[in-house]
């Protein structure tokens, strides 16, 4: 607002928005109303509903029966499979998420040089992320197959190692899932690549004039400049990895010996196989609490290493 506007008029405006502003606000709400309605029906009601169900015994056929904290108490104190699924899922998250970030960033750094065919390379690395998860699952089930599987053949041909029985071994099934997930590293890589291309060249030139080594340029120019995207990929990766379902459902059903019994498999079985909707709702809320806590922790510590530029 123009500073020359008389104070009385300014106050009048801030108290009573103009007719034009009110008309605009009216239309804003009309235009976003599909989302508001959808949010109320398909999100807010389910959030409140699953919170309520988590305190009940509920099999869909009979009305929910209030049991207080019994579901939570059962999960934490008596349900061995709940703890197992928690351990399996967060072991996977703890290894796969940092590994994805490191590999995606390394590939993006390498792809960020001008050589012929870079565009084609970028497309190829992105390709696996387009595959339907069910097709990916079938393909890797085949690649990991014992005796005639091509991965074990490659291991024996290249290193003379007798490959493990990947999906049939309680020790190797999680490494197998992590290996398979690396195939989809092109997703975060494309984002890193775009961020790298946005780093102004002058920063590197200045660093070179100061005699900074390649490592110091990476550490003190590249990493700070793309740190918002590292944070973004970290959080998106955490949320996605903690919800792994389709591949595990198709490939192992959680086996062998529950070694790949991911959190959402346990939840799905309770809800849609045993129709323990109350128990499954409690599981859903525990997952939400864990993911939210981790996200908040990451945000809290991100203040130390994420650099948002001077203009923001």
């Amino acid at each position: 607002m123009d500073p020359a506007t008389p104070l009385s008029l300014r106050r009048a405006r801030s108290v009573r928005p103009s007719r034009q502003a009110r008309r605009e606000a009216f239309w804003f709400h009309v235009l976003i109303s599909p989302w508001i309605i959808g949010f109320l029906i398909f999100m807010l009601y389910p959030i409140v509903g699953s919170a309520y169900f988590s305190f009940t015994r509920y099999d869909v056929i009979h009305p929910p029966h209030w049991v207080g904290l019994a579901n939570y108490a059962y999960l934490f104190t008596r349900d061995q499979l709940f703890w197992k699924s928690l351990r399996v899922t967060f072991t996977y998250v703890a290894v796969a998420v940092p590994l994805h970030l490191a590999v995606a960033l390394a590939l993006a750094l390498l792809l960020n040089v001008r050589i012929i065919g870079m565009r084609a390379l970028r497309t190829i690395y992105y390709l696996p992320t387009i595959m339907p998860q069910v097709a990916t699952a079938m393909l890797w089930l085949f690649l990991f197959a014992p005796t005639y599987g091509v991965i074990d053949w490659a291991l024996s041909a290249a290193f003379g190692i007798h490959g493990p029985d990947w999906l049939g071994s309680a020790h190797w099934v999680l490494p197998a899932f992590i290996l398979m997930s690396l195939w989809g590293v092109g997703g975060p890589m494309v984002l890193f690549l775009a961020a790298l291309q946005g780093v102004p060249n002058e920063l590197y030139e200045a660093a070179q004039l100061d005699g900074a080594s390649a490592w110091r340029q990476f550490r003190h120019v590249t990493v700070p400049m793309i740190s918002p995207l590292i944070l973004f990929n970290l959080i998106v990766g955490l949320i996605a990895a903690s919800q792994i379902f389709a591949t595990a459902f198709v490939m192992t059903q959680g086996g062998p010996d529950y070694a790949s019994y991911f959190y959402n498999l346990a939840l799905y079985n309770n809800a849609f196989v045993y129709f323990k909707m109350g128990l499954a709702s409690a599981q859903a809320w525990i997952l939400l609490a864990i993911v939210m806590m981790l996200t908040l922790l990451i945000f809290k510590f991100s203040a130390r290493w994420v650099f948002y530029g001077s203009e923001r």
Partner: protein
Amino acid sequence: MAGRKRRMRRILAAAVLLPGVLLILFPFYWMVASSVEHLAQIVRFPPELVPHPLDFASYPKGLTFLPFARYFLNTSEIAVLSTLGAVLSASVVGFAFARLHAPTKKFFFVLVLSTMMLPMAVLLIPQFVLFKTLGWVNTYLPLIVPAFFGGSAFLIFLFRQFFSSIPEEVFDAARIDGCGYPRLYWSIARPLAVPAFTAAAVFHFQFSWNDFLAPLIYINSNSKYTLALGIANFRSAYGATPWNQLMAVSLMMALVPITIFFFAQNYLLSGIVVSSR
């Protein structure tokens, strides 16, 4: 000095990236190669790196063992209708967030973005109860109707970013002519947004085409299966694992999103980049 360094970097890039490309491409190759082999060739050790002789029989066999033509139509119906709804509604909502002002705008925008972080599991059970009460279980409605209410937070964000980048002057002339907001969206903004519509449509189509969890929960009669359900069900229906047929049908399912990606990849990659800002 600088020139030598740059050359070193290129050599390093090629030395890592080219073997990497082989690792990425090999599973695709193996999928194609196995689909044109006889089952006896597949279980042989060491495996045949180049299949010989070629046997295309697994395509007709696999695709007719279960009614995959039917599943193809089912999946297409769901994906096309839900994409239509998602793109239409997300573009209107995104337009409002980009070009209109209201005191509540920031609140709603933060709300939209925060829904991205919600684990699917929290919504799953009450949604199922809701759709069951409505009598929508074993119909495609739970897979289509929600898309008409804003698509997803990601699509809204994509459209909002795109519409924000259009210069204000484009709208000024129309506004002086007394053009209302709905017409501002329909006649001015929408025709300019072909790249955003393309990216959003492809993203949502792929999501819907590839979706497994929602069809698994809502569809239970065989004739209504989607491709994802059909393939997941193939082994137990067959009572064994005919890898050549499984690779053939998986490849046929994957071919649709891959083909679309190749035609739309420039729009897509810029769409992904926009969404991360």
